[in-house]
């Protein structure tokens, strides 16, 4: 052993010092004298307290009665103006207040009873050390050792090992059962797809539709500074089928805005738009809220969740907030009928990052 040891300063001579200095601590003076309350000595005060408690319990019964009547008497749709709160549902307010007071008066009554009439003289209970005494501890060890010896665990290692193995493995089927069936395992591929892929539309360009009306948008409808919330025309299939709608929308949401073409500072952004009309994914690249607050004056798109701010004229690069990547742009053109269409899907995954995103 090394001779390092941690000691409280002046570790020697503990006993003597204890003896010597114990006198220089104050002594616990013991419980202070008990002070009588009015109701302890004065029968009148006791009587008064009794009446007060009974009144409180009585008020509780009254409040319950109000609840019972109000439950039947107040029509569902009635409302009234509650000062300081606003227009409120009468039923909710009356039922809540009467229930609240019924409970509260029971509580206040009980506490008042305890404080005025029950003994307020403090009682002392002993504590004992938490640990068992040495004999019991030794007995416990003996019991376990004897049991182990009886089962011959030490002498027959084969049983020990095989039991450990069996116990170690038996839970696996349950875990596998759950994990195996929780969800599909094609996540990395699916996360990269949206229904803007022309493959979803027999290879034809996909029209941009107003969300939620699902009507196509003409280039001329998009006036300067106006903002459109857009879904692909392919969404209609899901709406008609009645399922998969929200899953499709969760990745396909797009925002369409017309800028002055000279404002746009990135050539790709100009090329992928039409006369300053540009379309970007509306799903925040941070954790996926819908980025829908557009500031007309600064041309910023703002996410309401954690305030990531995307600079629209600069290809939606992040200029503030916790998101890292720009919103992906959707290339748009105009079809023969004059409607806006997307000739190719998104070229990169939309929405929040995931491990396999760049693969």
């Amino acid at each position, binding site marked *: 052993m090394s001779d*390092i040891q*941690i000691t409280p300063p002046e570790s020697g001579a503990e006993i003597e010092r204890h003896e010597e200095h114990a006198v220089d601590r*104050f002594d616990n003076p013991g419980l202070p004298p*008990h002070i009588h309350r009015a109701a302890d000595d004065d029968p009148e005060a006791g009587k008064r307290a009794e009446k007060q408690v009974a009144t409180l319990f009585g008020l509780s019964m009254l409040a319950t009665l109000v609840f019972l009547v109000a439950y039947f008497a107040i029509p569902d749709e009635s409302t009234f103006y509650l000062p300081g709160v606003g227009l409120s549902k009468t*039923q909710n307010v009356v039922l809540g207040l009467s229930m609240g007071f019924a409970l509260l008066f029971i509580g206040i009554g009980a506490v008042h009873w305890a404080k005025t009439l029950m003994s307020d003289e403090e009682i*002392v209970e002993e504590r004992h050390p938490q640990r068992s005494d040495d004999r019991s501890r030794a007995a416990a060890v003996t019991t376990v050792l004897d049991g182990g010896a009886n089962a011959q665990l030490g002498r027959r290692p084969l049983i020990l090992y095989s039991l450990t193995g069996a116990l170690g493995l038996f839970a696996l089927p349950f875990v596998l059962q759950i994990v195996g069936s929780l969800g599909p395992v094609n996540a990395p591929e699916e996360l990269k797809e949206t229904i803007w892929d022309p493959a979803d539309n027999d290879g034809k360009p996909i029209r941009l539709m107003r969300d939620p009306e699902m009507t196509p948008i003409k280039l001329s409808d998009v006036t300067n500074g106006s903002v459109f919330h857009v879904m692909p025309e392919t969404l209609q299939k899901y709406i008609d089928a009645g399922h998969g709608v929200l*899953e499709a929308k969760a990745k396909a949401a797009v925002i369409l805005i017309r800028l002055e073409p000279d404002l746009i500072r990135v050539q790709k952004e100009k090329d992928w738009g039409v006369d300053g009309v540009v379309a970007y994914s509306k799903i925040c690249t941070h954790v996926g809220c819908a980025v829908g607050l557009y500031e007309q004056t600064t041309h910023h798109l703002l996410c309401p969740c954690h305030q990531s701010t995307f600079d629209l004229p600069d290809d939606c690069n992040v200029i503030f907030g*916790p998101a890292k990547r720009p919103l992906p742009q959707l290339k748009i053109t105009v079809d023969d009928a004059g409607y806006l269409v997307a000739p190719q899907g998104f070229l990169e995954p939309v929405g929040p990052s995931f*491990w396999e995103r760049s693969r």
Partner: protein
Amino acid sequence: MSTINETRPAEALRDGDPDVEQERADTKPLGGIAGWLDDRTGGAKPASHFLKKVFPDHWSFMLGEIAMYSMIICLLTGVFLTFWYVPSMTQVVYNGSYVPLQGVTVSDAYSSTLNISFDIRGGLLIRQIHHWGALIFVVSVFVHMTRVFFTGAFRKPREINWVLGTLLSMLACIEGFAGYSLPDDLLSGTGIRAMNGFVQSIPIVGSYVSYFIFGGAFPGEAIIPRLYSVHVLLLPAVLVGVFTAHILFVVIHKHTQFPGPGRTNNNVVGFPLMPVYMAKAGGFFFIVFGIIALVSAVVSINPIWGYGPYDPSPITAGSQPDWYMGFADGALRLLPGFLEFDTFGFTWSMNIFPGSILLLPIMWTVIGVYPFVESWVTGDKREHHLLDRPRNAPTRAGIGVAGITAYTVLLFASGNDLMAIKLHLSINDLTQLFRLLFFIGPPIAFWLTKRICLSLQRADRQKVLHGRETGTIWRYPDGRFEEIHAPLSPFERWALVQHESPEPLRISAEADENGVASPLARKERVRAKLSHFYFNDRVAPPTPSELEAAHHHGDEVDEGHLLTGEHEAIDPATTGDSSSTPRETIKADRKRST
């Protein structure tokens, strides 16, 4: 007011603690149902023992009770809600009595929550009680936790209960999040969407885990039923189980008490369960329930009909989670985007992962291990049943306030957009400020708290040595004015002088005989450093001889009952310098309690 019994020294009280119950003449035989039960269970003995259990009284001990009661209230009202709530994401056309949404396609979950609010009589009230109860539950759990922390109630033998409590507070937050998501409205749906983003940010397995949780692509149809079984079955079962163990430990350990005359480390002074504590605690349940019902009657909470059903494309301005998840949201707002990077084509979302998935386990682990760290540093292996007054453990108080400061900065950061609007500040500046505060706030808070605690301790010393200010000013013939100080009675004094003020541990030797540094030395050096950090600044509690000296020092008036307050500087020997301070007192205590 008259006084009965004489001053009862604690030692004498202990002597009187009877081992065997004396038979009393006025008692009755156990009969009726209780007798029938005892015949079959033998429960009379433990029951009467339990009914006589003593609970100490202090307002701060009610915080845990509030937590317990609001949990019970949530359980009761939650059962009510399950009768009508439908945990399904099947799309249906709403045709209930809330006119603005009639004809809109919504999920079963949303539509049934609307029905509870508008078509089930009293349903809205129960929903609001459930939600208010949940909020008060989480608040009271946290406040209860700080009480336990600052008073050192987590020390031996209560470490296990501290860990259980830590677990409970984490489960409470998760339970709340699961419940908040159930109505499937726009706001809570946005919360689930963000949760999906968090999960996707987990390195390597994130995308798979997301698909497992949602049963496929977000949002799918599985998440609400799954959250439902977590919210009403899994977590309540675990919560109730852990809570029961928590309470059982309180009974086994007996409640701690604040120091005071007659209270020692070996007794509990308070009121018996039957009848005083029963009436007070039982009454308090009704008070908590009553107040929650009153609040729910007038203050509307989570009016989901105003938010609309969940749909991934509309935007929700100012979306915020319930307050107890705010700190995680704040952390996400402060983490800068440049922390995301790619290696070998794989994406590390370090702007998301630490603030969302890692934050909770890290925070709760740090809280959970604190008692073990402290007891390692102090080397204190004794049982502690007397609470510390927070000022008497300045470093611990400082650590606690520093932690709360970090938490609060994150919580406020989650409202940076609202603050920017209300205060007309730029959100960029605010965010930068919060980032700065997150790092410099806690150290400042630590330092301030510790200083304040030490000053309070000095003030206590002054009070003991020179008496309490009476507000009476004396004028002497020579024109001097002086305030008269009244000496403290032994009862008043005791709480101010009973504590220990340990000194830092010191290493007595760092190398063996050959001058080789011992491998143990490094660990122990760390420990000595930490001990120094904990205990170097200390104010020793006054001793009788110091009081004696102070008496002789001042001019005594009125036969020593009133001391003139002559304020002398505290002798440095008794405050800072460890070499000359009396250390023995601590050992004396150690001897007494082991």
